[in-house]
């Protein structure tokens, strides 16, 4: 064991199992895009499946009904994403509010408590909403009925009214404190001399906030905004899956959920793969254009 120093090849050899592993889990699925060009048949090997060219791509716009579905899913995805982006100013405001608190004990308390919801799963959020808003024994319905505000319990969960807004509000509840951490870190990075200079120039606290804190947070805000735009169609599906039911399905089905529903639930694998491909292509395009914007505006790329 005295041949001490590692050779470059030996080091490469040591990571190679992990390279293979990463290849299998992250790159090999790309080979599955082939299924978009064949009629997928369960149980047979990929080479035996009949090649159908762009049949499934055409299927996307084959019937009016199908076009309608795609448009509905896109509207859900973009609609909720836009609401999310529109509310992305809230963590910034929340961070400033926190920073302006005079009592550091209260500040720490509020920060601790408001970050907690970020760490519970959407299933648990659903459970909480269920306990509070369900028809048969939700607290809110109970209290409101007892106080005579409403005569019959309101069905919050099984109704598609204002669903996008409800989902956004839940997203805010869950993520506000967490997102604010980024801004709090940025506030701590602001040079104190700027505040002193502003104070000497006669700026009160409000003006200091407006002219020092807010501009100091803009770079962070900008980067997060760009990332949100890049991810506008990557909504994930936990939240939408758990809140989805017969009544809400139509206005909650986002792209990710739609792919899952058509592919894995209904077994329409080839068609769902087409949707996956288009989604990946579009979101990569978004990522690169957003990165280009970032380069030209800030002179720095975001990834």
């Amino acid at each position, binding site marked *: *064991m005295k041949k*001490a120093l590692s*050779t470059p090849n030996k*080091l*490469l050899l*040591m990571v190679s199992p*992990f*390279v293979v*592993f*990463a290849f*299998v889990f*992250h790159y090999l*699925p*790309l080979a599955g*895009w082939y*299924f978009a060009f064949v009629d997928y048949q369960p149980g047979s090997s990929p080479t035996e499946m009949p090649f159908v060219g762009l049949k499934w791509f055409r299927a996307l716009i084959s019937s009016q009904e199908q076009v309608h579905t795609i448009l509905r899913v896109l509207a859900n995805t973009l609609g909720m994403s836009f609401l999310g982006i529109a509310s992305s100013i809230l963590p910034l405001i*929340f961070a400033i*509010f926190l920073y*302006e*608190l*005079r009592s550091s004990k*209260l500040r720490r308390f*509020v920060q601790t*408590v*408001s970050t907690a919801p970020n*760490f*519970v*799963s959407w*299933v648990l959020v659903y*459970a*909480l909403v*269920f*306990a*509070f808003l369900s028809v*048969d*024994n939700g*607290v809110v319905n109970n209290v409101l009925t007892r106080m005579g505000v409403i005569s019959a319990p309101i069905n919050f*969960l099984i109704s598609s009214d204002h669903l996008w807004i409800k989902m956004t509000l839940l997203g805010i509840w869950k993520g*506000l404190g967490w997102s604010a*951490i980024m801004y*709090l*870190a940025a506030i701590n990075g602001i040079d*104190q001399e700027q*505040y002193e200079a502003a*104070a000497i120039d006669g700026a*009160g*606290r*409000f003006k200091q906030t407006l002219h020092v804190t807010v501009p100091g947070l803009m770079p962070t805000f900008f980067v997060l905004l760009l990332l949100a735009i890049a991810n506008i169609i990557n909504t994930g599906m*936990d939240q939408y*899956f758990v809140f989805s*039911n017969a009544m809400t399905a139509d206005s909650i089905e986002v792209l*990710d959920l739609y*792919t899952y529903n058509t*592919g*894995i639930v209904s077994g329409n694998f080839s068609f769902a*793969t087409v949707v*996956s491909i288009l989604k*990946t292509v579009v979101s990569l395009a978004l*990522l690169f254009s957003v990165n280009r914007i970032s380069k030209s505006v800030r002179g720095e790329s975001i*990834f």
Partner: protein
Amino acid sequence: MTIPTTTSAVPPIQNADKLLVASEPAKKARHRLRRAPRHIAPMEQRSTGEKVFQVFNVVVLVLFAFVCLYPFYYIFINTISSNQLSASGKILFWPREIHFTNYAEIFQIPDIWHAFLVSIERTVIGTGLTVICSAFLGFMMTQRKMRYRTFVYRFFVATMYVSAGVVPVYLLFNYIGLLDNFLVYVLPGMVSAFYIVLVKTFIESSIPETLQEAAEIDGAGTMSLFFRIMLPLMGPILATLAIFTAVGQWNSFMDTVIYVTRSDLQTLQYILYRYLTQSTALANSINAGGGSMTEISNTTQTAQSVQLTVTMVAVLPIFMVYPFMQRYFVKGITIGAVKG
């Protein structure tokens, strides 16, 4: 907070301001400066507007904190109160007729107990695998001597941006036998590009290279360098990864939905979801029949008590590690902002 209390008629905070300007030792002043720097601006006169804002600010933030905290508190007090009172919606602020039978009894339900074990298993095994792999690969990516190191690193990092979509992944898992297999919970997250970047950044920024060189001169091979020298020094970053992975594993839900049909692989999250959605149906049918649950004693399990208790069992572990997490997540989030 750092200021010693003094006897004075002035409200504590204003008092603190004066103290700081006048006589606070420099060290404490600096500490104070970091927390609430602008309070010491010497000629600061608070206008009425600013006072109004302070009040408004406190009210808004306390309200939001309440909205974040109360749901968890509500569920907790309902699980330890009389199920009868709970079922009639009478427990709002304080627990009444406290008992802990719910917690004992829900584990008597075989499904729940089993799901609880699966959740623990995947959390322990998944976290262990992810942490050790990320630590090792992050470390290896700092080894300049490695052949094709830059390429390998980029190969890992690119996985963050490549996603084939849920269906191709599902079909692949089908071919390699991961469907309905416990491994589907722990393998896919094992090599995580983001964590590799975090570990690499950590090593490069806080472990001096000379240390490695010294160990190598002393004849340490790569493995013993990793296990004996580096691993013990990577404590903080590994703790961060472990906590985040563990919470992720514990909370994970969609993978059960997508890849698992075997009931003995269901996790606690999945069981909870099933109980919530199934008893919606149950409750609906009870309502439709105009009937009601008869003869509920204090500790009889009701649909509601089971739901709430399972919810609490799923929440509690997270809240137990939360204080430890808090120490790390600010660090984690700021390291994450550094480019890889």
